[in-house]
């Protein structure tokens, strides 16, 4: 079978269930694709070649199971999510040799659904970054142009899915870390509603913001994975006990956008977009209009404070969450220290990378006596106002549509020495995490100047992922496919 690794997850799953291909063929095709592309893109931190092959043998022997929607499908997982039989490093030296003795709930659900976990994806250390340059181990490259970043922090996941190393990856999104790399690499990514997918086994960065979600080549694949990983989990006290819709069924119900009102936040569309990004995004909006959607303008009056509020809250939560890396229970320890306090300091200073140290320190500062009200509480008040902006917008529209990033993927090294400049690239993605709402990004074409992918995002009220998936599917059908990433041909 030709180009098997570029097929959609849905298509591969159907072929596997119908025994038109063997699990072994698919796994071997992915491993070959990895061998071919990995030296160029560096998307993986660990590859589980042997046990993937032995699982394939066992599955081919037992035959397909119609109750398992991912039976025999090779996928990868961002290395911030705990996997029992594979390392989980979070892209950090401090967890270089860490092997969790438990499995994240979402990983267990994927395995129960029959997925084969091929390996773990590279990422910015502890998911802190927008380019994957902050990994302690390697720099992932964009499959469309190897001189450019894949985005971050789920850059390894995005690059690997775009390259056809696997049929999907699970990433995490604290301030855009699924949507921004998906947009930069020309794939689809969904940040579910906060509480939709269990965070048990997801190594914490910003606990009130973090959410795991699918990164795929099509909207249909994304919907299928949502069926598998969603749902209440008693092991995560913030997981939502409400019902989980049948996402693929909901997506197939809608052929057009008639009766849907799409809101364009004026502040997002006026905010210094590169001409090619604006051109592609406006084209997508006009296709949505052609498909029957009513397009209205909405206001996000507090949008300009989003980045400041987001980074204060994320850094404050990080400074607290990362206190656990002290060289005692797991990970790296500096053995040269005479006493406990010195051991803590030396371990953390040598084991954690510069961006992580920067964020821990700013987080510590904004939580410290005398600054708490001025920064942390103030940011939480703005968070309330941003959530209210969304709720008010949803009174006049069913979903919101916005660009994902101001421009296409930037060059490796371009922003790495200016942390503030790097934070500002997250301008369109962070407010969603503050509000806890779901957002889907799909590719809308290649920029005419850079030739790199442009993405657009749909945002819906909490627990209304079906609306963004439906809109994404209609638009995906209306747009020409991007094709295979250019730098890998």
């Amino acid at each position: 079978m030709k180009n098997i690794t570029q097929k959609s997850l849905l298509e591969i799953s159907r072929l596997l269930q119908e025994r038109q291909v063997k699990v072994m063929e698919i796994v071997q095709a992915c491993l070959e694709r990895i061998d071919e592309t990995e030296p160029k893109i560096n998307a993986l931190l660990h590859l589980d070649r042997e046990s993937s092959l032995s699982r394939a043998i066992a599955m081919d022997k037992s035959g397909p199971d119609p109750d398992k929607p991912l039976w025999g499908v090779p996928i990868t997982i961002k290395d911030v999510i705990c996997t029992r039989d594979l390392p989980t490093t979070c892209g950090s030296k401090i967890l270089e040799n860490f092997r969790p003795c438990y499995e994240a709930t979402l990983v267990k659900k994927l395995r129960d659904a029959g997925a084969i976990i091929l390996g773990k994806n590279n990422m910015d250390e502890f998911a802190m970054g927008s380019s994957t340059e902050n990994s302690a181990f390697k720099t992932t490259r964009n499959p469309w142009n190897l001189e450019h970043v894949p985005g971050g922090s789920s850059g390894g996941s995005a690059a690997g899915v775009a390259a056809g190393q696997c049929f999907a990856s699970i990433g995490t999104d604290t301030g855009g870390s699924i949507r921004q790399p998906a947009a930069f690499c020309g794939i689809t990514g969904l940040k579910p509603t906060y509480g939709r997918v269990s965070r048990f086994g997801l190594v914490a960065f910003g606990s009130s913001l973090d959410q795991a979600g699918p990164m795929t080549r099509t909207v249909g694949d994304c919907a299928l994975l949502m069926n598998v990983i969603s749902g209440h989990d008693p092991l995560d006290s913030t997981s939502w006990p409400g019902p989980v819709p049948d996402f693929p069924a909901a997506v197939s119900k809608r052929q057009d956008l008639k009766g849907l009102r799409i809101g364009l936040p004026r502040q997002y569309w006026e905010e210094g977009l590169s001409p090619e990004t604006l051109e592609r995004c406006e084209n997508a909006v006009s296709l949505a209009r052609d498909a029957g959607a009513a397009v209205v303008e909405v206001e996000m009056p507090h949008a300009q404070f989003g980045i400041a509020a987001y980074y204060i809250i994320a850094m404050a939560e990080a400074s607290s969450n990362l206190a656990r890396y002290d060289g005692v229970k797991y990970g790296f320890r500096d053995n040269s220290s005479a006493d406990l306090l010195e051991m803590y300091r030396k371990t953390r200073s040598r084991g954690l990378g510069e961006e992580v140290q920067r964020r821990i320190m700013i987080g510590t500062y904004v939580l410290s006596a005398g600054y708490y009200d001025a920064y942390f509480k103030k940011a939480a008040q703005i968070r309330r106002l941003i959530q209210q902006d969304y709720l008010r917008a949803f009174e006049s529209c069913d979903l919101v549509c916005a660009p994902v990033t101001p421009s296409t993927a930037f060059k490796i090294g371009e922003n790495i020495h200016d942390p503030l400049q790097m934070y500002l690239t997250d301008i369109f993605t962070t407010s969603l995490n503050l509000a806890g709402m779901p957002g889907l990004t799909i590719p809308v074409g290649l920029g005419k100047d850079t030739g790199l992918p442009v993405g657009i995002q749909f945002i819906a009220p909490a627990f209304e992922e079906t609306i963004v998936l439906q809109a994404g599917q209609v638009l995906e059908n209306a747009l020409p496919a991007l094709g295979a990433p250019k730098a890998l041909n």
Partner: protein
Amino acid sequence: MEITKKQVARIADLARLELKEEKVEKFALQFSDIIGYMDKMNSLDTTGVEPLYSPWAGTSVTRRDEAAKNYQRADLLVNAPVQDGQYFIVPKIL
């Protein structure tokens, strides 16, 4: 707002980090930049706005207060840099 080298050293101490002199200098400049940007929040009057600390401010979820043996001691100790089969071992405290 300007963040001084002395403040950076104090924050590093609170965060249990040990910074070389050149990093203290670099962070002081960068933090002034970053915190300076955050200060734009002050242009907005938020008097009387209830802070939002989590998207879904549900009530606290508690479990029954019962002991359960979910993990084996050996499995939990295996990742520790120094342990004796029973406990995590740390350098002298006193």
